[in-house]
C-alpha cells in the first residue's frame, strides 16, 4: 500500500490502470498526439484574433474594457459582473497599455490551447487515445468557439477554468474515492470557483455538480473489480453516497470565491457571493421586452412581423403585457432582491406569457446563430477586417452549420458511447443546468458551457468507441433531436436575415 499525505490508501496505480483506461486504448494520449490539432487550433485562433484586431469594441466588449481600465487606473472594481475577466483586462492593461484589447486576444489563444488540452484528456479518459485526438481536432475547427479568442468576451477565460473542473470531477468519478489523490476534489472545486469568479451563472451548476459527485462516487466499477468482499460491499451499489468528497468539492469552491465574497461584504454590507447581475437579469428576463442579443444591430430585427426577422418567433411570444419598471433600492445588493421579487410577481400575474416566452428563449439558446455571426455583421466598415462580403458570408455560413452538426454528433455519442456512464450523466447534468438559463434569458452565447462536453461526446462517437444503446437511451436521444430541430424553426428567419446582412 502506498502512503498518501494523510493516510494509507490502496494501490492507486493499480486502480488507476483499471479506472482510467478506456476500452479501446492501446497507449494513452500523449502530448505529442496533440501537437498537430492544437497547433492548428492556435493558428486558426491567431488568424481570427489578428483579423479582429483594431475593430471597435462592440456590445459588452466596450463595457469589459472600460471596467478593466477603471480597475487598473483607480484600483477598485465598479462593475456588477463577476470580477475575473475585468481583472485580467486591468492587469493586461497595466502591461500593454492601449494595446490591452489586442494583448487579451493573444492571451485568449493561449487559454484556448489550455482548454483544448484538457478537453482532449476528457475524451481520452472515456474513448481512448483516438477519441482524444478527434476531440482536439473538433475543438480546433469548431468556429463558434474558436471565434471567442478574437472577441473581448469572458468565455475563453471561463472555459479555461470550467473544462479543467469538469476533467477533475470526471476523473474523480473514474478513479473512485479510494484511488483518487486527496487533492482531486479540492482541485475540482477550486477550478469551479475560478469559473464562478469569471461567470456568475456557474453557481447554477454548483449544487447539481456536488450532488452528481456524491452519486458518481457510489458504486465504482474499478473498486468493484479490485477489492475483496468488504471492499465491494462498500464501493459498489450498496455503498454509501460520496457525501464527504462532495462536501470537499463544495468547500473548496467556497474557499476560492471567499476572498471576493469578503470584499463584497465590506463593499455592500450584504452577503453577495460573486456579483450583482441577477437583478438586471430579472428585469430583462422576467419582464415583457424581447431581447435577442444574437440579432443586435439588425434594423429589421425589431420588426417582429417581418418574415425574415421571425414571424413564428413573434407568434410564439404572443401579445406582451405591460412591462414593469420596478422599485429603486439604495443599496445595489438590495436592488437585486427587489427586481427578483418584482419579476416573480410579473410571472405570477402572467404565467401563460412567461411559459410562451420560455419557448422563445429556448429557441434562441439552441439557435444556429452564434456570437461570431453577430460580430461579423457589426464589423462592416470599409477598411476593417472581414469587409469583403464573400469572406464574411462563408465564415458566417460555416459557423451556422457547425452547431447543428455538433448537436447531432453529440446526441449520437451520448446514446452510443461505450464505458462512459459518468460522462453521460455529467453531460446530461451540464446540458440541463446550461439550458436552465432560459428561465432567465436565452441566446447563443449562454450555451457555451455545454459545448466542450458536446465536442467530447461527438469525438467519442466519431472515434468508434461505441456500444449498442439501450432502448431508453435511443428514445431519449431521438426525443432530444426532435425537440432541438423543432426549436430551430423560429431561428430560420433570423439566420437567413443575418446571412443576407453579411453578404
Amino acid at each position, binding site marked *: 500500500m502506498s502512503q498518501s499525505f494523510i493516510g494509507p490508501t490502496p494501490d492507486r496505480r493499480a486502480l488507476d490502470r483499471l479506472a482510467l483506461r478506456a476500452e479501446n486504448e492501446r497507449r494513452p494520449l500523449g502530448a505529442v498526439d496533440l501537437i498537430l490539432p492544437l497547433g492548428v487550433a492556435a493558428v486558426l485562433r491567431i488568424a481570427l484574433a489578428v483579423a479582429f484586431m483594431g475593430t471597435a469594441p462592440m456590445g459588452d466588449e466596450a463595457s469589459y474594457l472600460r471596467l478593466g481600465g477603471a480597475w487598473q487606473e483607480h484600483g477598485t472594481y465598479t462593475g456588477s459582473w463577476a470580477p475575473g475577466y475585468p481583472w485580467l483586462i486591468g492587469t493586461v492593461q497595466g502591461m500593454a497599455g492601449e494595446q490591452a484589447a489586442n494583448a487579451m486576444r493573444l492571451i485568449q489563444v493561449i487559454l484556448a490551447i489550455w482548454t483544448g488540452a484538457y478537453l482532449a484528456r476528457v475524451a481520452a479518459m472515456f474513448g481512448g487515445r483516438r477519441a482524444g485526438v478527434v476531440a482536439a481536432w473538433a475543438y480546433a475547427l469548431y468556429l463558434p468557439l474558436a471565434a471567442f479568442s478574437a472577441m473581448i468576451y469572458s468565455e475563453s477565460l471561463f472555459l479555461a477554468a470550467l473544462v479543467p473542473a469538469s476533467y477533475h470531477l470526471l476523473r474523480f468519478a473514474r478513479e473512485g474515492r479510494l484511488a483518487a489523490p486527496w487533492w482531486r476534489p479540492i482541485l475540482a472545486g477550486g477550478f469551479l470557483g475560478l469559473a464562478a469568479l469569471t461567470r456568475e451563472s456557474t453557481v447554477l451548476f454548483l449544487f447539481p455538480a456536488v450532488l452528481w459527485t456524491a452519486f458518481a462516487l457510489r458504486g465504482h466499477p474499478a473498486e468493484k473489480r479490485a477489492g475483496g468482499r468488504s471492499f465491494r460491499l462498500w464501493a459498489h451499489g450498496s455503498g454509501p453516497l460520496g457525501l464527504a468528497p462532495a462536501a470537499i468539492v463544495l*468547500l473548496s469552491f467556497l*474557499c476560492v470565491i471567499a476572498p471576493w465574497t469578503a470584499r463584497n461584504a465590506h463593499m455592500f*454590507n450584504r452577503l453577495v457571493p460573486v456579483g450583482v447581475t441577477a437583478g438586471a437579469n430579472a428585469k430583462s428576463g422576467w419582464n415583457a421586452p424581447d431581447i435577442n442579443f444574437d440579432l443586435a444591430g439588425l434594423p429589421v430585427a425589431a420588426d417582429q412581423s417581418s418574415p425574415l426577422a421571425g414571424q413564428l418567433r413573434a407568434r410564439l411570444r404572443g401579445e406582451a403585457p405591460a412591462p414593469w419598471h420596478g422599485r429603486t433600492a439604495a443599496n445595489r445588493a438590495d436592488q437585486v432582491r427587489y427586481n427578483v421579487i418584482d419579476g416573480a410577481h410579473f410571472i405570477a400575474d402572467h404565467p401563460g406569457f412567461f411559459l410562451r416566452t420560455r419557448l422563445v428563449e429556448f429557441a434562441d439558446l439552441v439557435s444556429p446563430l452564434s456570437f461570431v455571426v453577430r460580430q461579423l455583421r457589426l464589423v462592416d466598415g470599409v477598411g476593417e477586417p472581414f469587409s469583403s462580403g464573400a469572406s464574411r458570408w462563408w465564415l458566417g455560413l460555416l459557423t451556422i452549420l457547425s452547431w447543428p452538426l455538433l448537436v447531432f454528433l453529440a446526441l449520437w455519442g451520448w446514446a452510443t458511447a461505450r464505458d462512459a456512464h459518468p460522462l453521460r450523466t455529467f453531460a446530461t447534468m451540464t446540458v440541463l443546468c446550461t439550458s436552465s438559463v432560459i428561465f432567465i434569458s436565452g441566446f447563443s452565447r449562454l450555451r457555451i458551457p455545454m459545448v466542450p462536453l458536446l465536442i467530447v461526446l461527438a469525438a467519442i462517437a466519431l472515434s468508434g468507441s461505441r456500444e449498442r444503446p439501450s432502448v431508453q437511451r435511443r428514445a431519449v436521444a431521438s426525443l432530444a433531436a426532435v425537440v432541438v430541430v423543432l426549436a430551430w424553426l423560429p431561428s430560420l428567419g433570423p439566420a437567413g436575415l443575418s446571412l443576407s446582412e453579411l453578404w
Partner: protein
Amino acid sequence: MSETDAPDDPRPDEAPDLGAPDLGAVRRRERRVLTILGVLLAVGALVVWLTIPSDETLLERAYHHEDPETRVEAAQALVVRGYWMDRSPEEILAFLEGVPENVRVFLRDAHPALARAARPARVRREAAQK
C-alpha cells in the same frame, strides 16, 4: 473463483487483488480535509463579519486614509451602499470638494451621477456669490 472474478466483471483477469481496503483511513483523510476547509471558512467568515466597516468609517477612510486605493474603495462602497441616495446636494457637494484629488477623479469617471446630484447646490452657491 476468487472474489474479484465475479461473473459480471468485464475484465476479471486484469483485476489486482488488493485485499481488504482500509476504509477507515479514507474516511479519516476526508474528514481531515473537510475539517481544515471548514475551519478556514468559518474563521474567515467570522473575521469578515466582525470587520465590515460602517458608513461613517468609510466616509472617514475616503477623506483621510493614507492609501489612495483604500480611499477610492471606500468612496465606491459608499456609492454602492446607496449612502448618497437620501443626502442633500450640499452634503454631496461638500464631499466631492473635500475628498483628495484621486477620489474626486474616480467619482467623476465612474459615478458622474453623483456630480449631477450635487449640481443644484453648486448652482445655488454660485447664485449666492453673485
